[in-house]
């Protein structure tokens, strides 16, 4: 099939299958999946600027489906999502400015690559340690299987640190009944800003940073963090899509075809979260940043940009 906007020929079935895989990951982990979509589009000969912009447009559609499904399961904290969106958009602009500064200094690729490797590996190692420790202590405390609504009750080995963060009283304090927490607005904005900064700096939606931050820093239960992150991604990725479309970086026809597969994948991913407890979802999350790190290492070693 010919896509005139980006001037490329791509098999629509390939696009739908890529969308399906990303949809499952998005529905289950609350991530955009840009670390797969970008390289998958590049492999088909789509220019890098179109790959980035089109991926964002596809993320909007997929996140709408997954967030709607999570909402029906009670996994979306709308109030938190709206505050997060404000911080994320601010951070994304900051990240983009940082990239421009590095471009002027002439070492953007090296710096971004090494930052990405350190961040991805750090997240993977930390989440492996935390979810492993939590699962081990859960096994010692109660050997029974956790199913259904019970599985949403979350425990974390990092819990004491999270509680200390929640106790930091900087006005205004926000109560989030859906997530069951009371926390300073500035903590929420800071977490969202850092997520947005990485999104603007490293590309994609940065769900690999935001979802763990919501769990470990804000103390949001994992299922709610996944659903709320998706809701927040709808807003921030829409903003990104519009700015990229104005700059001529979006082939909406490719995004629409990819999205047909993502719809089914996202629904499967969302349903699957019902059968897993928070620590198990966090443990299953670990390979995602590792894949991201492997892609960056590959591009550094070979000089090819996937």
């Amino acid at each position: 099939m010919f896509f005139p906007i980006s001037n490329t020929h791509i098999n629509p079935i390939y696009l739908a299958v890529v969308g399906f895989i990303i949809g499952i990951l998005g529905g289950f982990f609350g991530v955009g999946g840009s670390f797969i979509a970008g390289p998958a589009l590049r492999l088909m000969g789509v220019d890098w600027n179109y790959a980035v912009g089109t991926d964002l447009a596809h993320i909007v559609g997929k996140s709408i489906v997954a967030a709607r499904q999570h909402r029906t399961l009670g996994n979306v904290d709308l109030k938190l999502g709206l505050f997060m969106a404000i911080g994320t958009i601010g951070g994304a602009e900051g990240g983009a400015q940082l990239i421009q500064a590095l471009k002027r200094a002439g070492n953007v690729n090296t710096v971004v690559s090494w930052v990405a490797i350190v961040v991805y590996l750090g997240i993977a190692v930390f989440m492996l340690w935390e979810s492993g420790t939590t699962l081990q202590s859960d096994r010692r405390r109660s050997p029974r299987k956790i199913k259904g609504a019970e599985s949403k009750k979350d425990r974390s080995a990092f819990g004491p640190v999270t509680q200390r963060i929640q106790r930091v009283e900087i006005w205004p304090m926000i109560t989030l009944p859906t997530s069951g927490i009371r926390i300073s607005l500035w903590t929420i904005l800071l977490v969202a800003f850092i997520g947005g900064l990485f999104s603007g700096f490293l590309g994609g939606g940065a769900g690999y940073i935001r979802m763990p931050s919501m769990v470990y820093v804000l103390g949001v239960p994992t299922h709610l963090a996944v659903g709320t992150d998706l809701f927040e991604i709808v807003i921030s990725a829409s903003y990104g899509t519009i700015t990229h479309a104005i700059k001529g970086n979006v082939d909406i026809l490719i995004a629409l075809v990819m999205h047909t597969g993502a719809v089914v994948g996202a629904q499967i991913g969302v349903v699957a979260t019902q059968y897993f407890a928070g620590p198990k979802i966090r443990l299953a999350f670990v390979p995602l940043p590792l894949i991201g790190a492997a892609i960056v290492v590959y591009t550094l070693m070979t000089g090819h940009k996937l």
Partner: protein
Amino acid sequence: MKKGTAKSLQAFAIELAVYSVLVICYFFLVLHLLGDWLYRLESQHRYMYAAVAILLIAGQAVVLDTVTTLLFRFLRGRGK
């Protein structure tokens, strides 16, 4: 395999088959018709293209989500 799981998988397979037929029709009808218009819009009216792009992807998300949910409910209901 449990009877319930087998039924769910069967319903899902049928849903996927029906959905695939719908999507293929969508590829060749809607996208073929929209292709040229969107191409011209992208090269001549960028701001309008940006607005149309976000509306199209959001609209498709809502419509396809509704279609798959209804399809799944209908097939599940028939299975019972």
